[in-house]
């Protein structure tokens, strides 16, 4: 039974009681991403500060999908909220690396567990290629939204 290693308690908790779920009125940018193979969807709204640090000061989402995609999005919102964009994107990048680790023991990799905090719980997902896209859905949406938000700020 490898299930427990994939569905760690943290994941199931976030799935049952998601954070930042429900779209907020305050936002700069909204993006909608889908996973065409399974139909999972997520909408992410982001607001960043106008200063050079572009702190993520509002993030919210809504979505339809499996426990992995929903929990992962919930964890993502916790981790990026309140961070300057550069730091938030570093976490995003680290999560991507985690997903590409093919189930390797984190100790054997360069992955920074401290950076990932709760997101480290998704390590088991990296052994299931078809589920990696689920775990990445919200994270990719955030990356997209962040880029658009910066572009919008810099234009004005």
């Amino acid at each position, binding site marked *: *039974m*490898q*299930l427990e290693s*994939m*569905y760690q308690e943290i994941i*199931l908790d976030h799935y049952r009681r998601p954070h930042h779920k429900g779209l907020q009125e305050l936002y700069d940018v909204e993006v909608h991403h889908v996973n065409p*193979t*399974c*139909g*999972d*969807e997520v909408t992410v709204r982001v607001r960043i500060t106008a200063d050079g640090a572009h702190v993520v000061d509002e993030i919210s989402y809504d979505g*339809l*999908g*499996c*426990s*992995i*995609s929903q929990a992962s999005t919930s964890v993502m919102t916790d981790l990026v909220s309140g961070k300057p964009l550069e730091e938030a994107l570093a976490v995003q990048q680290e999560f991507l690396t985690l997903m590409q680790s093919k189930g390797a023991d984190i100790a054997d990799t360069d992955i920074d567990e401290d950076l990932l905090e709760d997101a480290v719980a998704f390590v088991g997902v990296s052994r*299931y290629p078809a*589920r990696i896209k*689920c775990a990445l859905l919200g994270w990719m949406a955030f990356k997209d939204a962040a880029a658009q938000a910066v572009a919008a700020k810099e234009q004005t």
Partner: protein
Amino acid sequence: MSTLLGLDVTRIKADFPILSRTVRDGRRLVYLDSGATSQKPVQVLDAERAFYTQHNAAVHRGAHQLAEEATDAYESARATIAAFIGAQPDEIVFTKNATEGINLVAYAMSNATTAGPESARFVVGPGDSIVVTEMEHHANLVPWQMLAQRTGATLRWLGLTDDGRLDLSNLDEVVDATTKMVAFVHQSNVLGTINPVETLVRRAREVGALVLVDACQSVPHQSTDVHAIGADFLVFSGHKMLGPLGIGVLWGRPELLAAMPPFLTGGSMIEVVHMEGSTFAAPPQRFEAGVPMAAQAVGLAAACDYLTSIGMDAVAAHEHELTGRAIEGLSALPGVRIIGPVTTEARGGAVSFVVDGIHPHDVGQVLDDRGVEVRVGHHCAWPLTRRYGVPATTRATFYLYNDAADVDALVDAVKAAQAFFGSA
């Protein structure tokens, strides 16, 4: 237990090498995804390999002995496959999959606009309609959307009833005098529903429309006679009926194929070629441009022989029993709802379901962890999934190598998923 249902499944399983492998740390493989693609018996693999090690050459292009033998193998395969659906050899065209077969007809129809007067029958344009259903696989939906986009014709569709059947209440309005093509799935790959071909064909005939039947999920599972079906075109894929990947079949009425403009063009489909223009060979060659997949045709013929030796009626009866057992077993679980007919009446062996409180992806994960390989998602029929108000479903599909133990493993695994996620 294995012979319970009339077929000697133990003996059949022995012909499929992959079925003796294990998955996920030693679990027995319970393959319930034949609706996506079937497994292949050694007889098919051996036939394909024998072609390569003994007769390989480019068919219809050479005069030497290997080319003669390869051409003979290819055309004999065509005869076997045609006979399997009650057709004549010249009435079937080899494509790479069923998807290409449908695209072939859709593109031939837009090509008719700039082709000669003999193909006027196929022209569609503004004011004309093309009719599909809301339960189509994307392969029998998107090509028609594109045909409409290319030509200005309108796409219409028949809706579905809550119990997973076609809604025929407005058939006479949807299919009307503007309709040039009615394209529908014979057996739904999600609901299992077998559609009332006769009713649909009759209405299409009344308005003079062409009819294309997507038989991807019926030809592999029941005895098929194209003349009894009465359509103009019928498509299916080899890989879902024990044959190799990379080959599909388009059957067409000979007089229609003879009048239809080509789709893919190139070598072997021509009559005379000048720089200024070309003329084309008679069907089926006209629709088979380039060096064809001869080895795969030989493999598919071996698959037909294999199925014939067992008997398509026996295959259908066997799957019917498995389907009944699955519907019963799953329906008995609290919180499990079947999407599609809940009787075995006019229904094949695709059983889709949702489990309250557990997303299909998560259901699938638990099943996979126990070696039960099903498909989860929209099954390339996204509008259908949306129609039933669910994000996705879990789908089990059966074939001749499955037995009652496989069905029971499925039901047990769904129970395990409920236990794991604490939803039942």
